[in-house]
């Protein structure tokens, strides 16, 4: 029996067919986007839509910083103080390291890890100390970065810590396809961890092996977290982004010395403003024998090695 006034053209068969197809389709879509739920824990729409560091207005930067504070608190259980330190006028940072004095104790390596909230497992280290044979060749091929000893320095060796040289002509900046890394006016080469796509071109381009990649989400115990954080510096990084030495931007732009310098028991590390003729680094470059690592590459580093005699 059919009543033309109530006939909508939907038979039982077509209704069942359509609803089955729709349900299967919805289930397939849900299954397809299921992996995205794992992403959702840390990333947000705001983070996705965030602009490049250089395009952020001061108000937008404020919002971003407080969002990062919330994110870090949610992930690590401790509320940090994230700031955006700006470069000072008339300041260009230079680092100098005394190869005569360095004993290779690696205290700088671990002070850096503690100060800059690097991942602890796997541990990311910005500084790599090379043990070099004291045979006059200065051959990096003969260097040993994984040395162990009961006591250092060992006879017949000298030690050369290598970290980011903050080059004036940085190959890493030139190769970045998205401009997520650049040089600040005070000479510090920085990374915007929110803009980096993790292609690792910069890691390959760096002749000093100064850049590190976050293969996994950094694991940092809450009680070891340094809560004095900076946007371009030591805030916790994300999985899949590059990071590197930034001269402890949260310390140096507040006028303090980097952590690796303060911990050095031999006083081999010197840091300061090269534009100030009375700074320690100016004295070194004027009066000491200075070595530039891989000078022939023309990278013009702001990191110098020097000798006592």
């Amino acid at each position: 029996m059919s009543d033309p006034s109530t006939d909508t053209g939907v038979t039982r068969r077509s209704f069942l067919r359509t609803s089955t197809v729709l349900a299967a389709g919805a289930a397939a879509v849900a299954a397809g986007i299921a992996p995205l739920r794992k992403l959702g824990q840390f990333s947000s729409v705001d983070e996705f839509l965030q602009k490049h560091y250089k395009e952020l207005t001061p108000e937008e930067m404020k919002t971003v910083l407080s969002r990062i504070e919330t994110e870090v608190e949610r992930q690590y259980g401790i509320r940090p103080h994230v700031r955006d330190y700006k470069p000072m006028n008339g300041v260009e940072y230079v680092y100098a390291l005394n190869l005569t004095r360095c004993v290779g104790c690696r205290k700088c390596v671990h002070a850096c890890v503690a100060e800059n909230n690097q991942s602890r497992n796997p541990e990311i280290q910005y500084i790599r100390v090379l043990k070099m044979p004291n045979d006059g060749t200065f051959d990096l091929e003969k260097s040993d970065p994984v040395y162990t000893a009961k006591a250092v320095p060992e006879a017949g060796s000298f030690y050369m810590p290598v970290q980011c040289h903050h080059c004036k002509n940085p190959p890493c900046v030139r190769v970045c396809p998205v401009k997520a890394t650049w040089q600040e006016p005070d000479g510090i080469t920085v990374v915007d961890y929110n803009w980096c796509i993790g292609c690792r071109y910069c890691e390959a381009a760096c002749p000093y092996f100064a850049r590190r990649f976050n293969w996994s989400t950094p694991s940092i115990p809450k009680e070891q977290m340094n809560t004095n954080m900076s946007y371009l510096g030591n805030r916790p990084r994300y999985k899949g982004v590059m990071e590197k030495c930034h001269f402890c931007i949260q310390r140096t732009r507040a006028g303090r010395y980097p952590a690796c310098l303060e911990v050095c028991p031999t006083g081999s590390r010197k840091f300061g403003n090269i534009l100030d003729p009375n700074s320690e680094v100016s004295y070194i470059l004027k009066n000491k024998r200075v070595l530039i690592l891989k000078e022939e590459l023309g990278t013009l580093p702001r990191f110098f090695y020097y000798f006592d005699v």
Partner: protein
Amino acid sequence: MSEESKTSLALGTLTVVFAALAIAFARVPAPVPAPPRQPLVVPANLAGVLPPGTVRISAAQLIKSGGDTSGLDCYACHHKDQPPVIKVEADRRIILPKEHSDLIFGMRNCAECHPADKPVKLEYAEDGTVVVPEAHRGLLAMAHGRNFRNENCFNCHDQDQLNQLHTADGTKVKFEDATLLCAGCHGPTYRDWEAGIHGRTSGYWDRSAGPIVRQQCASCHDPHAPAFTGLIPMPGPHFRARDK
């Protein structure tokens, strides 16, 4: 109440009070006055020069004398309210724990055993070297330079008063100015130190933001054995275990 019983009551009360006081005094020993401390360096003189922790006595003595240990970074591991037990051998030599083997404990207070009114006499061996007394073995390493003549205590110390230093030409130098005495022989190093190139620094590179913290020679070097012994290197590059 009769006059007699009043008197006996008063006397009885007084007896009880005196007896109680006698018992109280007998129980609480009179406090022995602590021996006066003789700091080699008066911290107040060093204001602005040195961090307050850089007083030239050993960490063990500082803890024992109840001094301000806040400048020492011992509390990275030790708890402030639970000072570590210091083990001492029969000859008063401090037994250093293994993990402290790269600490500098060589800066000792000579005046503790050698007061100013008892000058020290040196004994010389046949070859002209100074005989180090038995009591100093392990307490004081004498290894200053490669020339044995450097081991003569009175090259730097005043013979009558060990707390007084003098340069080679006899000019008196105060203990807290010992860096100037070192400069007498180590000129190039002193020149670098003055320029801020030699030695540990901390604080501020930007002098308008805060002070730089400098160290004196004897803050890091044991003046009796200035060369450093080896340090234990910290772990190298980290590789994630494969089974994770």
